[in-house]
Structure formats: C-alpha cells, structure tokens
C-alpha cells in the first residue's frame, strides 16, 4: 500500500454493522405478514411507523432492499416531496415523506390496497371543480 501523503488523512473503511441475525428486520417482516393476513381476510389496513421503531440506518436500508420495488411508483410534490411505491409484495406499500430540504420527515410501511394520501381529497375536488368552471367560462 502506498504511504499516505503528509497532508492526507487516510480513510480506512470498515464494515461496522455486520449481521446481528437480522432480529429487528425479521420482527418487522412478521408484523407485515400479520398485516397482509388481516388485509386479505377482513380488508383492514395496517400502518407501521418506521420513525417509532428503533432501527439503525443500515437496518432500514436493508429492510427496503428486501421489500424491493414493485409495479407502482408515485411521486408527490407537496411540502417537500413524497415517494410512495408498492413493494414486490402486493398490498405492502412504502411511504417516504421528505421536507423541502429533502430530509426525511416521516416514513411508513402501509399494508393496504392504496395509501390514503394518494386519493384525491373531497375538499380539493370541490375546489378543482370551481377552478375548472372558471376554465370553461374563459375558454
């Protein structure tokens, strides 16, 4: 190995977080599975707030990696951005909200047909209708 130059601090990368049998990740996967059981049996939705679960950053990344990304991917721009996608497991959605500086503000795993936030909201529909009327009037 070449000696470090005088003015350069050598950086030695180490794998500081090897497997701890994935205990934390495994328990979340089991909770997701219970949510899927309920969704298919009774249609009830379940939300896991990842901000309330003690996961290290690398564990969170591993969880997302294991769940993967499925067919639907939604991007929203409001109070920052939000990324919503169905995972490789149908009915299991990842919802990531970022603020306007692109910092994560909250993160959820939703076990449902589609996360509520994607649906158009009744009040916004009413506003949209009157805006559209303005458009029709002026065209």
């Amino acid at each position, binding site marked *: 190995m070449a000696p470090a130059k005088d003015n350069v601090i050598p950086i030695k990368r180490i794998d500081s977080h090897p497997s*701890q049998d994935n205990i934390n990740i495994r328990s979340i996967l089991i909770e997701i599975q219970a949510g899927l059981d309920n969704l298919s049996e009774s249609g009830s*939705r379940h939300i896991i707030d990842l901000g309330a679960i003690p996961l290290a950053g690398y564990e969170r990344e591993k969880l997302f990696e294991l769940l993967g990304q499925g067919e639907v991917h939604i991007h929203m721009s409001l109070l920052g951005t939000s990324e919503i996608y169905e995972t490789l497991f149908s009915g299991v959605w990842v919802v990531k909200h970022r603020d306007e500086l692109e910092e994560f*503000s909250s993160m959820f795993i939703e076990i449902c047909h589609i996360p509520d936030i994607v649906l158009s909201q009744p009040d*916004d529909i009413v506003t949209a209708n009157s805006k559209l009327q303005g458009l029709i009037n002026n065209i």
Partner: protein
Amino acid sequence: MITQETLGKTLISHGVSRRGFIKFCSTLTSMLALHPSMAIQVAKSLEKIQRPSVIWLHFQECTGCSESLTRSHAPTIESLIFDYISLDYHETLLAAAGDAAEKALHDAMHAHKGKYLLVVEGSIPLANPGFSTVGGKSNLDVLQHVAKDAAAIIAVGSCASFGGLPNADPNPTGAVSVSDIIKDKPIINISGCPPIPVVITGVLAHYLTFNVLPELDELGRPKTFYADTIHDRCYRRPFYDKGLFAESFDDEGAKKGWCLYRLGCKGPTTHNACATVKWNDQTSWPVEAGHGCLGCSEPRFWDGGGFYKALSIPGSDVKKMAGYAVAAGLAAGAVGGMANRSKKVDAVKKHETISVEDWEE
C-alpha cells in the same frame, strides 16, 4: 399580534392542499408517537385549534435548548409548529430590547392572562439572587411573577427540569429547578442537554392538537417521549442480550457495532427518545455514532460517576443479568451467587461502578 386563525386554515391559506395537510398530520402523528391511523383525527383537531401565546424565559443556562430548536432546518414540521405558536416573548430571539421588551412581556401576560404557556430554559440560583438577573430582576422574582398567570409551564432542558449543569456538585449558585419553586401550576419537564428539538415541538404540538398537556411520568416528563429507556429501544440491544460488548472504542467489538455498556453507556437508566426519534432530522444518534449515552435527560447526570465508567447494575436487574450471562456463555452460578450480592447492592446505593469481574466472582 393575536390571531384567531387555526393551524389548518393557516396552512391552507399558505397554499398547502388538503393532501399536503394530511402529509403534515401524518408526520405530526409520528412525531407525537400516536398510532399512524390517528392522522385523520389529528387533522380534524388541528383544524379547530387556535394558536396559543407562549412566553419563553431564560435563566442560568447556555441557550443550547433554544439553539437545538431553532437550528432545526426550516421548513420542517418543527418550524411549522414553532412558527404557528404566538411566541410573544423570547429573550434571545426578541428583536425589541429594554423597555420595549418589558412591554412585550407585560402585554402578552395581560392579553392572555391565565391562558399563556410559560417556557423556562435554565435553572434558578437561590444562593444569591444577584448570580443571575435580567433587567435588574432576579430569576426567582421573574419566574414567580410570570408563572402566576400561566396556564402551564414547560421546563425545557435538564437545567430547568432538574437543575442541570449549574446544579452539579458543589452547586455554587444554589441552582434549583422550576418545580422546586413553583408548586401550584402544571409543569412539564422536557429534559435533555439539550432536549431533542422534535420533543420540544412535539409537546407544543400535543398541546395544540388536544388542548391539554400530555401524560407525564413520575419526573414530570411526557410519557410519549420518556416512557422507555434508551436501552429499551436501542438497536444494539440484541448484542447486549447476547452479552456481546465493545471493550474499547476501536476494538473488534466496537467495529462490529456491539453494545457500549462496558464503555459507560447510560442507556439502561436513561429515559429519552433518541433511539427512535434520533437527531439531525433522523440522521443518527449518539449510540449509532459509536458513543454511549451520557444520560443527559436524567436528574444529576453530571454527578453520575464518569461518562466512561460502566454503569452500576441496578439490583432489580440481577435476575435479568443472570439470564444474559447464560446467553453470553458465562457461569450462571457465579453470576447469580449471593456472595458478592451485598457489594453490588452497596455499589448501587452509592452509585459506584462495579466491574464485570465483580459480577463474575
């Protein structure tokens, strides 16, 4: 200025759509550690709640708690909540000075008599009133005067909550906490040195959302954030349970992310939300960065016997430790043996450190 606008209306009038408002409420619900399904109820409450008046006083402190809050990046949920309260008086953020500042305090107290929230940062010196004064008035006088007509008091930081650093042995100023002085008002302690900004705004948000103060633990801290210990929620806990400990900051154990207990981590006796809420917009927190918890949200943490000394093991944990020791392959009989018990109990009482060898004797 006192406005009657609700938070919901304020956001919507700033061009935030209903969907945006739901996003805001989902994040707020997460911040308040409520079940995520409550986001819609939170949204409904927030649509009705009007902004409260807040008076913020500084006593013996470093202003680190205000820094913690105001340094959170705008426009986060913290800043939206912080912007929403009517911060009528804050000695370090106030543009006005001298008589104008005094007038702002007087006006806020008068206009919101019996309704304003009083936030206190810092401890109060009782040894000599001259140790800490604002405009020639002692901290004690100011506190008693402003607390009289407050709806509730929020003691922000370990100094206001428990005396903090000024109260550390030998406590030269005779520093005490807010609750040592005020006995007839609801007081909520948001301890930490500094407290996590999300916890400060979370308590304000709880008050905004439900118009009552949150449920408190026996030390007056909101259970939402302080019910669990750092250790209860630490991602390194599986290593503790297996008896896998780092012995120095650069040994193999440290590199493998093992438990920091033997390096002095105070997580087992510290109640705070760092392990889940984390710091700097959920980037990381001390234990994730490789350093043990110092116990900064507990009373007298400065006098706890050294940040790098392994914690004395509470007597009630003896059974648990025996179990953990078995898991770690230690001799169970030795760990559970009574021979060394009195030494352990004594050490716990005196809060002395005992070594792992003591346990193994």
